């Protein structure tokens, strides 16, 4: 039996229905024409791309948005931020500030930093201990100089869902654009208002049972974007390069099969099952919210050394921080939420999906419990906690922590 997979937030398995559709476009020896070609096969490929474009936008409730295909969410985030920044500078706009929560994905943080080349200034917004954007921080930062506010609808490390509706109202009232990274939300959250308030919205196929190497940026027609990749002028010149028809068809098929409400409830039950198992270990800090996305549970184990935990769990398919920046130190997301380094480092992200079973939850819980107990048995920090010291005092935390 293979080890249980609890890293869906890093990437998901391909849905068999998606694999079947993609196989139709990848038969050995049969060419799939370039959709830019004007012969019948090219026109057929073009039609497939057009259908996929409409299907993805429809799945997101963004029928009136436009869509540009990218290699994934990272490129789409870069196009949203840098493309907007470049276009604003070309028009001589006075809006020159970018706002983004400190918990954003590195694709957004790094792109915002890179936007300085267009005269932009990036400013991070504080988040509360529960990972939600601090409303006061946003209110204080918003004014007529803000060009764009970037926010992840579902945080990739904690599963925390931002109050995008309320944020969008404020952002639009200030005349700024709202860029939403929905890589973890698409297909999982069903409230169309969560997506439709975005002026620019980013999705990725492989985060939701589709193929790796394809994503999209959806944007309102009124948004002005400059191209970041130049070449043959495909996609109205916004993103040159031959379109990968099998990947595009696969992404559209994945988005045609969102998680049903009952599947969401099933995953929520698994989330609760795992949380209960972790809570039984005691001294477990919850880095996720009860009302977060049901596919991500992030917890920190007090009294446990992070590097040692990673060592003992080396064969477990779980996440430690973001898989996209796993070589770095303690998670910048958890640090922004006020977790001290030692606690952030001892955090584990469990992310589950439509192929996860209750038996797999039991198996991973057993493995993690064994590792945590082994390390706590030799930990002077855990002994002190057992003797009655609070986690807050031992870890020098000023904000109260939510225990699992």
């Amino acid at each position, binding site marked *: 039996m293979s080890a249980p997979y609890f890293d869906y937030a890093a990437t998901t398995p391909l849905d068999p229905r998606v694999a079947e559709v993609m196989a139709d476009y990848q038969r050995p020896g049969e060419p799939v024409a370039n959709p830019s070609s004007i012969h019948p096969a090219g026109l057929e490929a073009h039609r497939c791309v057009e259908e996929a474009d409409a299907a993805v936008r429809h799945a997101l409730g963004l029928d009136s948005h436009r869509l540009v295909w990218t290699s994934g969410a990272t490129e789409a985030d870069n196009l949203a931020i840098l493309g907007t920044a470049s276009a604003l500078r070309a028009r001589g706009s006075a809006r020159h500030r970018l706002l983004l929560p400190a918990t954003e994905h590195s694709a957004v943080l790094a792109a915002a930093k890179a936007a300085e080349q267009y005269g932009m200034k990036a400013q991070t917004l504080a988040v509360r201990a529960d990972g939600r954007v601090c409303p006061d921080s946003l209110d204080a930062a918003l004014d007529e100089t803000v060009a764009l506010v970037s926010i992840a609808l579902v945080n990739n490390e904690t599963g925390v869902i931002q109050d995008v509706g309320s944020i969008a109202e404020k952002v639009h009232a200030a005349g700024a654009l709202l860029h939403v990274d929905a890589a973890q939300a698409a297909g999982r959250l069903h409230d169309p208002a969560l997506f439709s308030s975005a002026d620019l919205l980013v999705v990725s196929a492989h985060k939701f049972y589709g193929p790796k190497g394809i994503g999209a940026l959806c944007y309102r027609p009124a948004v002005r974007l400059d191209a970041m990749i130049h070449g043959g002028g495909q996609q109205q010149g916004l993103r040159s390069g031959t379109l990968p028809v099998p990947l595009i068809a696969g992404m559209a098929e994945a988005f045609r099969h969102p998680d049903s409400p009952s599947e969401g409830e099933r995953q929520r039950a698994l989330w609760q099952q795992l949380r209960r198992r972790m809570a039984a270990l005691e001294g477990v800090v919850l880095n996720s919210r009860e009302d977060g996305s049901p596919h991500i549970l992030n917890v920190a184990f007090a*009294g446990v*050394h992070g*590097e*040692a935990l990673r*060592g*003992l*769990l080396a064969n477990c398919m779980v996440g430690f921080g973001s898989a996209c920046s796993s070589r770095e130190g303690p998670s910048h997301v958890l640090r922004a939420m006020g977790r*001290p*380094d*030692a606690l952030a*480092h001892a955090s584990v992200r469990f992310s589950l999906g439509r192929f996860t079973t209750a038996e797999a939850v039991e198996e991973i819980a057993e*493995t993690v419990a*064994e*590792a945590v107990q*082994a*390390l706590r*048995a*030799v*930990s*002077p*920090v855990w*002994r002190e906690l057992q*003797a009655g010291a609070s986690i807050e005092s*031992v*870890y*020098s935390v000023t904000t109260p922590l939510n225990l699992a």
Partner: protein
Amino acid sequence: MQGWLDDQYQAHLGAPIVPAGYRHGRAGRLEDDCRVDCWVRLDNECLKAVCFEVFGSLEAVRMAGWLGHQLTGAPIARAEAVTGRWLAESLAVSAVAKTQALVIEDALRSALAAEEVKGGGC
């Protein structure tokens, strides 16, 4: 996860069940990513029991367990001669663990210099 630590070293990790009669020392800080406590029980000129508690990397845990095994039954003078550098070189640990070896040395020295714990539980 099985086999991550030899049983003979495991016996020298963790706090003693009854700390009375032990000398307890500590070094390092949680904020510095390594904290080590050392418990030694002396009998005349020898170390009758040695154990360590470690909040550190797996290498640090293994080093401490190994050292506890080496020193149990050894003369006090041998324990006093232990240095972090010797420990790190003996086990050929990584560069990061070399720093943690120094913390283990400090915890051992702190324990050797401490008073005996009188009665009571841990």
